[in-house]
């Protein structure tokens, strides 16, 4: 059986507050997708699900769909609607 992959997750603004943590590491099975990472987080913090439609997901600094496959060492960022300027 292949070893799990390790993914670093960054959360910002209201998503960070909801999760109670800005950054942590997820262990996921090989073949896991960005959507699987989101699901793993939502299981820890159910209220996250209410933000699913408004949260963009980035993988290594690029916006991706949930189906994007993850690799060991990837950085996944959870981006709520922006408010800069």
């Amino acid at each position, binding site marked *: 059986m292949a070893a799990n992959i390790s993914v670093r997750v*960054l959360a*910002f*603004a*209201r998503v960070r507050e909801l999760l109670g943590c800005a950054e942590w590491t997820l262990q996921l099975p090989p073949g896991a997708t960005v959507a699987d990472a989101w699901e793993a987080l939502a299981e820890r913090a159910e209220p996250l699900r209410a933000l699913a439609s408004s949260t*963009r997901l*980035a993988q290594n*600094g*690029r*916006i*991706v769909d949930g189906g994007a496959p993850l690799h060991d060492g990837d*950085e996944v*960022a959870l*981006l*709520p*609607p*922006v*408010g*800069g*300027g």
Partner: protein
Amino acid sequence: MVEITESALDLATLIAAVAGNDAGAVVTFQGVVRERSDDDRPVLGLSYEAYPAMALPEMRNICREAEAAFPGIRIALAHRVGELALGEASVAIAVAAPHRRSAFDACAYVIDELKKRVPIWKEERYVGGDVAWRENPAGENMPQRA
């Protein structure tokens, strides 16, 4: 010059970064912390946070787009993060151009696109102690796929 900083923004530094004898116009813009929120609540201050690993490349992309659309211009763009008090600048832009129209238009493009696309977030702190994350107008506040 493109930067995200916890320090107070200095417009003179941005102007110096774009200065040159080929410029016939320098347009500057600052976004500053206002005492009333959009829904008219009294504001004590703002707090900004950024994802610099994405925000800086996106800020550079926006500047490159403006430079391609308005030949001969130079742009300096800085965004502040951390705690800001009333009257402090959250974002500063300087654009040097051969003529004023392209300087005005490029400056407007840069701030409009920054507000839509760059992963930076704003929390308002109100008189009385409440806080709230405030998003830019709906439909114009989502980072897009590159």
